[in-house]
């Protein structure tokens, strides 16, 4: 499958939400909803993982895993330097997911509308975009956004 490789590599050089050394001594960079991994000191990443439709779990005090829900159901393990770092990574990865962000946005939109009578997306002219709708099957959940 073709993809805009050069542009994706350029993206990997953008300021990242999170960076660090993990198992196999890879440099891992979280940029938007992609996790890039590099051999340390190299400019070009070895690979990129899209952080959608995945489950992030704490395996033990220093290790977390990302399991993708595709047919391969591959699980990637990451070992961190500290428990705190491990927790931070899990938090960041979960919050980086576009789907996670979308759900939160829809929640805020609905709540703001309920509280103020105004649709907050109206001022941006994007009220009717399919992306921001409360669609069927998308449950409006109270997510713990206090730490966002």
């Amino acid at each position, binding site marked *: 499958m073709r993809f*805009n490789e*050069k542009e994706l590599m350029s*993206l990997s050089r953008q300021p990242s939400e999170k960076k660090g050394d993990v198992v196999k001594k890879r440099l891992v960079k979280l940029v938007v909803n992609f996790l890039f991994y590099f051999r340390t000191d190299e400019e070009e990443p070895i*690979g*990129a993982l899209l952080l959608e439709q995945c489950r992030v779990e704490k395996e033990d005090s220093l290790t977390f895993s990302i399991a993708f829900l595709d047919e391969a159901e591959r699980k990637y393990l990451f070992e961190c330097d500290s428990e705190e770092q491990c927790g931070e990574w899990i938090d960041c990865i979960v919050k980086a997911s576009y789907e996670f962000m979308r759900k939160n946005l829809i929640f805020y939109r609905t709540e703001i509308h309920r*509280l103020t009578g105004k649709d907050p997306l109206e001022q941006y002219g994007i009220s009717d975009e399919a992306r921001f*709708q409360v669609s069927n099957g998308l449950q409006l959940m109270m997510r713990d956004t206090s730490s966002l």
Partner: protein
Amino acid sequence: MKLHEKILTHYLSCTSPVDKEGYLYKKKERTATYHRRWFVLKANLLFYQERPADRHLLGVIVLEGCSVRPSESEGQFAFSLVFEGLKTYRFSAGDRQILESWVKALLSASHCYLSLLLRDLRVQYEEAKQQQGPGDSHRSSSVSGLRAEVREGRSFSAGMVLNAPSGPSKVVTKKSPKLWHRRNAHVTPLNGPAPLYGEWPLVGFDPLEEFSKLHDYYGQEVKRAREEWLRSRQAKEERSEEDLIDLG
């Protein structure tokens, strides 16, 4: 670089909502010909294949760091995705409505955009919650459902209902300088970080205040970009004998 394709193809086929799909003509640079492709926009990813029923994906475009531009030189309903200093993808739509609809969807597709929007809404939500204290007069009328919003004769599915605000509407004039600049052509150095998308003020600022301003301007940018589109379309129709307006 290995892009783990199975993750992408799974995401495409899973039950999360598709943001937009339809036929567009995509230009093949090497042959300078346009090919009709079925596009599916999901999150910040633009997938394409030959036909909707195809299992085989031809490709995906990650929509980060690109701008949506009209490309009238290419044709009546043409537009491009421009990655500054990198590739430009060229497209052509079947008619004006399809063109505008895709441009609008693509303008608000990036993760960066969603992130800004979210930060802004979070602030608004906190403010709204605080104002909704006991005995507060800013009570909104109860909304029992959502109805479709009809604009310019085109109907959209499940739009938000827009009640007249029960409280005073906020009009805030932003006098701060424009913070989101149009990207200039950058050469991406190989041995250092790529230049930032836009010139974000990064050091020594109050995130909540600045992002609210940034987002206002980003929002205005999106609005302006769309208005430019509409104006350029109208102007083109009115002055078909004159030179094309170059908005690129």
